[in-house]
């Protein structure tokens, strides 16, 4: 996503989705938390926030899968330790979702409880229909934005979109939704992981590009006599992620890390928050260097139980 100004115009030709998900707007690759100097009794510190934190903005063109991913992130960042960095940005940003009138080849939102016209996570819903952008509010925040910018809310848009969607192929690949927590119950030691993990390289391409992955690390960037405490993205696919100070690593190989990625998305997360941590955006499908396809992994995990 990039800053837009009126001179840029709007060209949606061929736009499927952004390479990086909108999470980077709310939960940037890295951000400062506090600055400190001195030592012991002379320690001084002050809280710092990135200039982007809390700056009002409108995100235009977020796809429905990604908008739904924001509800997944909200669940985490509003949990028992509300996260001021994330929430401050979330409050200041209005999300305008653009329905997918032509879904992409790797999209499978409809398999995981979403859909190309899903309004969850949207403040304003927009759709390009018959060569025109139609917009209607979903939340009060969205209604306020439309009122302030002088857009006439378009109540007919929703119906028109529904009609269009009935003529559009559903972005589904037969990935069976809804059964994951049960299907994965007791599967931690299942031999299926021995096979499924084999091609995985153990990079973070899938998790960094995933709109719902939200792991982070907090570390100090030190310099003479002080430093900056920083929070940045981390990935469960890295060995360092679980390395203990003792040198022991409870997830010693790619197999354990790969298993965690899927168990977390499909079992631990839904059990805790009632939401799958995959919204079917297809980014990991498109960008895994070795074509590990989450849709196939999901099918296999469920079909193994049935057979």
């Amino acid at each position, binding site marked *: 996503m990039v800053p837009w100004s009126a001179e840029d115009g709007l060209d949606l030709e*061929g736009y*499927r989705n952004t*390479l*990086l998900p909108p999470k980077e707007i709310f939960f940037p*690759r*890295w951000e400062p938390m506090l600055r400190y100097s001195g030592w012991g009794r002379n320690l001084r510190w002050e809280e710092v926030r990135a200039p982007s934190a809390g700056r009002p903005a409108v995100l235009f063109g977020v796809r429905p899968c990604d908008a739904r991913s924001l509800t997944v992130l909200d669940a985490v960042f509003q949990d028992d330790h509300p996260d001021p960095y994330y929430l401050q940005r979330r409050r200041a940003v209005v999300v305008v979702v653009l329905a997918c009138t032509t879904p*992409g*080849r*790797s999209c499978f939102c409809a398999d995981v409880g979403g859909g190309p016209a899903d309004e969850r996570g949207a403040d304003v819903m927009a759709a390009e229909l018959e060569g025109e952008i139609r917009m209607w509010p979903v939340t009060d925040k969205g209604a306020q934005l439309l009122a302030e910018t002088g857009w006439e809310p378009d109540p007919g848009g929703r119906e028109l979109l529904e009609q269009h969607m009935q003529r559009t192929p559903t972005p589904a690949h037969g990935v069976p939704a809804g059964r994951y927590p049960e299907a994965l119950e007791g599967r931690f030691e299942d031999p299926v992981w021995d*096979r499924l993990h*084999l*091609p995985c*390289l*153990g*990079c*973070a*391409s899938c*998790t*960094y*590009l995933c709109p719902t992955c939200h792991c982070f*690390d*907090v*570390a*100090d*960037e030190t310099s003479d006599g002080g430093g*900056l405490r*920083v*929070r*940045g*993205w981390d*990935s469960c696919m*890295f*060995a*360092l992620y679980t390395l203990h100070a003792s040198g022991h690593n409870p997830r010693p*190989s*790619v197999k354990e890390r790969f298993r965690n990625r899927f168990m977390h998305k499909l079992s631990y997360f839904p059990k805790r928050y009632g939401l799958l941590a995959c919204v079917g955006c297809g980014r990991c*499908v*498109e*960008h895994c*260097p*070795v*074509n*590990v*396809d989450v*849709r*196939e992994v999901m099918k296999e995990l469920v079909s193994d139980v049935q057979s």
Partner: protein
Amino acid sequence: MTEPASLARSLLEEGRVEVVVGYRPGTLPLRARPHFAFSPEQAAQFIWDRTCTPDLTVYLPRLKGRRVAVFVKGCDARSLVVLLQERQLSREQLVVIGLECPGVVTPDKLPPEQYQALTSATVEGEQVLLRGGSQLERVPVEQLLADPCRTCQHPDPVIQDYLIPTNCGRREREDPYGVVAQFERLEREERWVRLEREVADCIGCYACRQACPLCYCPDCFTDRFQPRWVGPIWSTSDALFFHLARALHLAGRCVDCGACVRACPLGIDLRHVYKRLEQAVKERFGYVPGLDPEAPPVLGTFRPEDPGDFIK
């Protein structure tokens, strides 16, 4: 049954190996993917064509000590040789199935919007058929050929127990250091600006490192924190430091398989840096990595006659 499949099948049936690592069709156009066969039945899926891009030798250090058969193209055979030179594997554990390589195609050569709109693609001789819904387009293989394949000096595997020949024609090799010369023509300041610009979008996912068969260190410098070399701030200078340090660690080792560039989701391409290091090692030490499993690694050896004029 295809030739790769029947060969793999017989190796498994005869119990010569525990596992065969090769290619099978992927779920995206023009993307074959790694396949691991442990049983003769699983061998049926093996293919070999111009979409078989991954360098499979990246998996071998993980399979150390096991009897493995692996499919290797020309460049992959050279990364395998480097792994042998560096004692990461033993020759006895391996059955090497060489693939005479006509060069592979990569979707990176298509504009992203065009690639994403494809529903399927097939390579037929020297043509690639691209299908997007009802649209059909033919483009020459040449247009989608991966950069390393354009300059490849060793398309026939330098090491092999079996060889699967190609029936495709061979192409003229372009100057391997053309990409270096192009970069070196720029002013010094401009070169720096270009390097910074190239890595500015890097998100530090380390897909490049993980896809590299020669980045096998269990403890990469990026994972050390006493001192911490990169991060937690991920600025352009951190990204550049990561990339230049990785490049230096690959000097005299990189075989130009292209896996790192293809793996990058952001399309970051520092091939010219790696080629420059390859060129320097060749000029100074007369050494080309990955040709002889018995040759000591160039930067792991000292000879009194080694040039020292670069130490100032």
